[in-house]
């Protein structure tokens, strides 16, 4: 007997869109520098939304699922939001470097290489690679945030009932 499957998609989409937007914006996106704040926080919010719309009790696994989905959606939105800003930032950096060279100032070593790497990152291949990597990292961070969210906003364990097995197995499990 299985407990009814919670509807993960809607909370993950809402929280993922917001977390991705915050992550992609300049300056505000720096919040992710603190242990992926927007992603972990977004996943925790997704867990709260899931807890609010689910009549049954949530387990740590439900939090991990909704959190991981939030992270993946956030990675897609983050990549899309960052694209126009990346072009703008690179163009701005190029202009500054050009101005430096006009005044005969030495350009710090490695900066041109960094700009080349940044230009390469705008190609579709690099974008896909970046998206894949972001999705993997954000999914892991999201799973963590979703589990924390369930622990803070949802109830932790399903009490044993005659019709449903307990969510926290007492016996050893090879899953851990």
């Amino acid at each position, binding site marked *: 007997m*299985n407990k009814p499957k919670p509807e993960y998609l809607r909370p993950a989409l809402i929280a993922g869109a917001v977390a991705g937007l915050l992550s992609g914006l300049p300056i505000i996106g720096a919040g992710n520098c603190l242990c992926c704040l927007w992603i972990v926080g977004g996943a925790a919010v997704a867990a709260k939304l899931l807890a609010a719309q689910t009549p049954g009790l949530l387990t740590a696994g439900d939090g991990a699922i909704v959190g991981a989905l939030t992270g993946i959606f956030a990675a897609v939105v983050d990549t899309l939001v960052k694209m126009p800003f990346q072009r703008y930032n690179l163009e701005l950096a190029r202009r500054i470097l050009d101005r430096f060279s006009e005044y005969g100032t030495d350009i710090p070593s490695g900066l041109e290489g960094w700009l080349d790497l940044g230009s390469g990152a705008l190609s579709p291949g690099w974008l896909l690679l970046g998206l894949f990597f972001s999705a993997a990292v954000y999914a892991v961070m999201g799973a963590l945030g979703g589990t924390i969210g369930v622990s803070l906003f949802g109830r932790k364990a399903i009490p044993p009932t005659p019709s449903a097995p307990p969510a926290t197995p007492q016996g050893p499990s090879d899953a851990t």
Partner: protein
Amino acid sequence: MVYAATVAGTVLWLAAILLAPWLAGRGADGAARIVYAVFAPVCHQDPQRCFALGGHPLAVCGRCLGIYMGFAAGLALTPFVRGFSRLALPRGRIFAVLILPMALDGVAGVLGLWRSPIGVRFVTGFAWGTILPFYFVAGVADLVLIRRRRRSGRGLEKSQGPT
């Protein structure tokens, strides 16, 4: 299984943090830049706030390094504290106590109230990091169990066929 995969992932992640300055020190600037770029979305990488290896900054700042080292330490403690069979999550109070020093230090830094030394950043990050594997391992292990249960439920339905 989940525990072993988490240990492997954590070791790889920590190794990659050290790999960036090691590559830079050996003159492999291109490869080092790629490793630094990998960590850029999750850390500001300000060299003044990073520990250095051979004169080159690590791929993440002192606080992030503390979080990841704390995660590794917590992961090592997990089997002794929780065992492998319990999926219960830590209490909210423990979570609050461990996040508080880092949150206070971080907020005060952002507001410009004080500028904490890198050692304090590392320690506050470490404290917060130690609790994270207790969430992560429990969450992912339960996720695997949920998927298994659903798969076996679907298999049972198929084997019984349409009624």
